[in-house]
């Protein structure tokens, strides 16, 4: 409620200059200005300077926008940058899949080969799904029970979902994926700024333990390892200071 006796504050003067007062308060401020010439001079100068600033910078607004700032162009560039990445990743996964089917699969020292494949599949899944708002998450975090059920079925035992809230990441949801030797589960997390992080788990066929190693596929980076016959990777876009710590926490705590 407006009170005519309420003193005029500095904030009111600004709101007056910027046209943000309701009519009643505006009248009160005008009355106060009429009584106080020094105050009036100050406010008049502020108002004039605001008008002059707008005029002085108006020519920037009127300029044609350069082509490199055209949104349609930036969108195209963005798609062009992304597409080859995951198509290539998918192609590599496919090639590995065909190799397996052809029976000349990478038998050698199983560990490195398995972890390489795991890394590529996880990175491919991240590139395809993590940023996709419509289909990235098949089951959202509200249906935590379903996610737990899925992950448990994938792992063949009861699991709990990693809690990354100490690192500022909350669970958005997850999806089932088919990987070379069977189902995989991907969980999608996001921090306050919306940056995505995915945790990808899959039972491994050979499952020779492999120590944690870095993964880098285009813009996606993180860590992968194989422990207790379960392959796991933690990936994010770009640099994340706490990613290694998160990967360690998940590996060491690994209920998943």
């Amino acid at each position, binding site marked *: 409620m407006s009170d005519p006796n309420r003193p005029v504050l*500095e*904030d009111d003067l*600004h*709101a007056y*200059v*910027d046209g*943000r007062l309701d009519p009643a308060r505006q009248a009160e401020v005008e009355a106060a200005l009429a009584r106080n010439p020094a105050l009036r001079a*100050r406010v008049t*100068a*502020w108002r004039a*300077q*605001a008008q*002059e*600033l*707008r*005029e*002085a*910078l108006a*020519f*920037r*607004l*009127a*300029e044609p*926008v*350069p082509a*490199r*700032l055209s*949104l349609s162009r*930036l*969108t195209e560039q*963005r798609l062009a940058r992304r597409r080859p990445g995951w198509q290539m990743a998918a192609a590599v996964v496919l090639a590995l899949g065909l190799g397996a089917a052809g029976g000349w699969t990478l038998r050698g020292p199983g560990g490195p080969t398995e972890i390489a494949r795991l890394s590529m599949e996880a990175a491919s899944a991240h590139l395809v799904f993590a*940023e*996709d*708002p*419509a289909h990235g998450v098949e089951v959202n975090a509200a249906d935590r029970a379903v996610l737990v059920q899925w992950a448990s079925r994938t792992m063949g035992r009861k699991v709990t979902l990693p809690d990354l809230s100490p690192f500022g990441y909350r669970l958005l949801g997850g999806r089932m994926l088919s990987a070379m030797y069977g189902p995989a589960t991907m969980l999608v997390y996001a921090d306050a700024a*919306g940056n995505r992080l995915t945790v990808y788990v899959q039972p491994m066929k050979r499952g020779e333990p492999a120590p944690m190693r870095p993964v880098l596929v285009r813009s996606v980076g993180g860590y992968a390892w194989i422990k207790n016959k379960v392959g796991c990777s933690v990936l994010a876009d770009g640099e994340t200071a706490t990613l290694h710590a998160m990967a360690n926490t998940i590996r060491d705590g690994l209920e998943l």
Partner: protein
Amino acid sequence: MSIIAEVEAAVPALRRYAWSLLRQRDGADDLVQDTLERALLHLPRLGAETAVRPWLFTIMHNLSVSRWRQLRRRARWMVQQEDRDAPVPAEQEGGLARRDLLAGLELLPEEQRQVLLLVTVEGLEYREVAGILGVPIGTVMSRLSRARDRLRAHMEGREREPLRRVK
């Protein structure tokens, strides 16, 4: 208006703000381009109730915080080397006073200049400016007061100066 159209409509204002802060055209457009690229990346996750213009200014502010000093240093250096962007076309009416106004603007501490520009030129609400800069609204108001008084003193000093010289 679709969100993408709102973003597009805000581009001239983003350029104006970036330029007002950096006073160097290529650096300003680089900053705008980075802002738009980041906006496109996050656009799909934008809540329907988000006000697009303040959101874009927030992205630009956050991006600039890390790059700002470097850009400004480079901008200053380039200005000394070459010619700084003319504040206004020379033939424009009132060009001299405006040049002086923009010079006064540049003398303000950066945090005051940001607030003054966002409020007066970009027409954003005080609480929006507080959100963009990540400071309490009281801080916005006190910076606004200091900016306005300083710029006033600058402009009035300029008017008085010739008189003093006559004496």
